[in-house]
């Protein structure tokens, strides 16, 4: 009886692990394509942001999966960091414009956002760089960023809830955003 139980348990466990493994392999594949598309989207967004003439910067990080993103932002910028750009942009203050926040380092990669202000209203938040160091964090930040963006737009401040399951991304996102808002004297 014990033998039968042992064998059945081993078989069942092995089957479950195998199914998990297979599902994982598929997730990885589909993620890979999702990452490429989201990276492409990011590139377009940030390219637009940088093209608007702020001369803002993104830290040119390297990262295999987010290479599209970094090359896109890197094209229009030097290697200076957000803090320097905020000091230069601080002068132009309340008139509006686009301001980049500081690049915040997290264990899952750098997070930097850029905020667009028109007539004292936050009209847009663009992610210049999001967490990308592990497969999973790319997925998480891709999901969290739009949620954070819409919350920030409705709250009109960086004082919003973090997204469950995306604590690191949220914290870094909001920190970077606050720096950008400070720079804009918003």
């Amino acid at each position, binding site marked *: *009886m014990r033998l*039968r*139980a*042992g064998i*059945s*348990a*081993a078989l*069942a*466990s*092995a089957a*479950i*692990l195998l*199914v*998990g*493994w297979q*599902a*994982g*392999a598929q*997730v*990885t594949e589909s*993620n890979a394509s999702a990452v490429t598309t989201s990276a492409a989207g990011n590139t377009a967004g940030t390219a637009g942001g940088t093209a608007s003439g702020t001369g803002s910067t993104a830290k040119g990080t390297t990262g295999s999966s987010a290479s599209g993103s970094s090359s896109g932002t890197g094209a229009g910028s030097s290697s200076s960091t957000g803090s320097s750009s905020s000091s230069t942009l601080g002068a132009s203050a309340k008139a509006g414009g686009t301001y980049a926040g500081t690049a915040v*380092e997290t*264990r899952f990669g750098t997070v930097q956002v850029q905020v667009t202000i028109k007539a004292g209203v936050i009209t847009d938040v663009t992610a210049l760089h999001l967490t990308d*160091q*592990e*497969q*999973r*964090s790319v997925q*998480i930040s891709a*999901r969290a960023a739009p949620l954070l963006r819409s919350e920030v737009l409705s709250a009109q401040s960086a004082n919003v809830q*973090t*997204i*469950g*399951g*995306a*604590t*690191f991304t949220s*914290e870094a996102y909001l920190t970077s955003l606050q720096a950008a808002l400070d720079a804009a004297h918003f």
Partner: protein
Amino acid sequence: MKSQLLASPGQRVGTSPGQPPVPARRNPTRGRFAAQHRRRMFRTDMLTVALWASLAAALALWLADGGMSSVGNLTQAVTAVGILAGLAGMDLVFLMLLLAARLPFVDGAVGHDRALEFHRKLGKPALYLLLAHGLLLATGYGMAEGLNPVSEAVALWTLVPDMWLAFVSMALFIAVVVTSLVAVRHRFPYEFWYFVHLLTYLAVAVALPHQFSVGGLFAEGTWQRWYWLLLYIGTGSALAWFRIARPVIATYRHQLTVRRVVPLVPGVFSIEMSGLRLNELSGNGGRFFVWRFLAPGMWWQAHPFSLSAEPQVGKSSRQPTLRITVRNLGAGSARLASLKPGTKVAIEGPYGVFSTAARSREHVVMIGAGIGITPLRALLESTPFAPGQATVLLRCSSTEELFLGDEILELCRKRGATLFHLTGPRSANTQSAWLPASAGTSRLRDFVPDITDADVYICGPSAWPA
């Protein structure tokens, strides 16, 4: 002295010690109890499978999330092992809670005591896995950020929301396991251990936030989050239902009150209780209930005692009664002797497989020592056997301690069971320490030649059957 009081029909009387017995092996897979036994064994096996499968499922959650693809270097490997340790550790905690939840399925398959024994065995592995989870993640995250594990742990505590709760949870888990280690437990009263043990629920509860907010695996919108949530909800409801709702319902249903306390010998007494719908409890002779006598200063003490008689209902025209027989072994049970008639009684149970549910063969052997004799009386009353197919061995240090001995003698006579009394001080011979000195080098087979083909019920001090 060894004395056979009743010879069963067709059985040799007084098998001479030392004579090689001839075990009459019959096929144990036949007979009326065989199917029941097979079902029970099947359920036991199912539990084993479910247990391992749940552990595999916890690890598969991580695999299904593409976990393997994220392991590229040492830092990521340390982090991954840390995550897996957390998943496995928490799964073991869920299993431990379910084992302690008095699920009827578990109780019927392996019995309450074996379930709790296994619960205890899982305690240390679960704690080690949770500790490894904390240490490995502090190390892995620290390596990624260039911090040592200690500063990383401080950073986690201070910077990441919900993480301080996880640290509190870890401290509680450590406290629970440490106070449950046998050596430590004997230094504290039971109630202290019990109170600390209740902290487990708090530990599990405060561990939840960081799993869902910091753990990317259980991020919003993932099916893993739902699976994990279901584990939490399922375990919580099982505990609420079987440990709280069911006992409350049983207490109200049966409305037990103490009828009288009957002293047997000094320090040993029977408590008789009357109540409603006791016929629903018949067939549970030998199984135990957890009793709470709702008298001032006693109500919070829970006493696990077996029934010493089948519930008495109906025909005898008396009020339906339950009976337990208690030996005065501690401060708690000593006070029970002074229970006043009319005291209300709250019950949980019946629990355990010391009943007909555990039978697998036709022949049955019941061995009891000391106060362990009393549940045998209830079992002897209810479990089916043909005349001559039951043997009862009662072991105690003096004839005075043959608790309920007269009732057992009467039952054996009525049902055709063979009865041995084994009385006297312990033998010095460690080989046969379970026997009185006067029995010499007798072995169990000398009393019950075909014991290999019988169900054996043993009830006595834990050191005694060994």
